[in-house]
């Protein structure tokens, strides 16, 4: 069992970027030792999302057509948007929006567990930040599903847990520079 304070993410991996002109999509794959049904619940149930996701919702995301208030957690100012679930084929495919961005989850049964794939169209300048954030969230999700929760790590909190290293590693993997890292920006000034 990993303690919250002792948690450290592993090296960057399992991510790729699909570049469609200026429109980039982050694709993250994570293999989990839990059934698609169990993972589906963690992706749709507000109480489960609250344990690991970078946002909270006030409604279950498991039904197509559902609209819910989606609140980013740990953002520097309160950031609330409305989300609409556009696809919900339990326990296989889930799509909804986060502001102007689209989130798509695919769950595939795989070796007794689930291969989870996330598509998230993040602006290319911030795509390595998104990969680093989701990497940590997936580690926390894995702990929740395994019954050994390490506690949600999002927003500024992630800075204490290797987020900067992951951001640099993913940026390198994606072939982009990270001129926008807050630490660098602060040093430049």
């Amino acid at each position, binding site marked *: 069992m990993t303690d919250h304070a002792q948690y450290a993410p592993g090296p960057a991996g399992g991510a790729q970027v699909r570049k469609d002109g200026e429109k980039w999509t982050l694709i993250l794959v994570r293999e989990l030792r839990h059934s698609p049904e169990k993972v589906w619940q963690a992706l749709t149930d507000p109480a489960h999302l609250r344990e690991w996701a970078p946002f909270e919702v006030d409604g279950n995301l498991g039904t197509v057509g559902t609209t819910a208030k989606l609140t980013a957690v740990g953002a520097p100012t309160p950031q609330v948007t409305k989300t609409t679930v556009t696809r919900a084929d339990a326990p296989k495919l889930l799509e909804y929006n986060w502001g102007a961005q689209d989130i798509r989850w695919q769950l595939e049964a795989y070796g007794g567990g689930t291969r989870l794939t996330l598509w998230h169209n993040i*602006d290319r300048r911030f795509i390595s930040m998104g990969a680093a954030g989701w990497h940590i969230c997936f580690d926390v999700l894995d702990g929740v599903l395994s019954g050994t929760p390490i506690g949600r790590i999002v927003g500024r909190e992630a800075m204490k847990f290797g987020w900067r290293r992951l951001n640099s590693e993913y940026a390198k993997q994606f072939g982009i520079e990270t001129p926008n890292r807050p630490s660098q920006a602060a040093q430049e000034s």
Partner: protein
Amino acid sequence: MKIKLTSVYVDDQDKALRFYTEVLGFAKKADFSQGPFRWLTVASPEEPSGTELQLALNNNPAAKAYQQAIFQQSQPATMFYTDDVKGDYERITARGAVFTMPPTDVTGSTIAMLNDTCGNLIQLTQLARYSR
């Protein structure tokens, strides 16, 4: 308690960053994002650790209505202090910005007003110095 940050709403953060750095001459300070939200601030190169100005995306209907109303009333969204308002006027005009009020003497100060192209009027203020 300290005042370390103030905000202006902008209709486009990329356009705003260009205007506030390339035209006005501020420097980018912080730029990071979480999901669709982008935290973007600039600071004065004269005071790099001074008050930051957040360039906040205005996607809030209530804030848009307020922003448009005060713009139409010629009210500035925020105000910057300078020691040389006429010099700034020349410099910023040369970079293509439009002033809605050239440097004008008023009680206790000289002020000018410019359009930031992102939905706001910005006032520049130079306080008058009185010799004894």
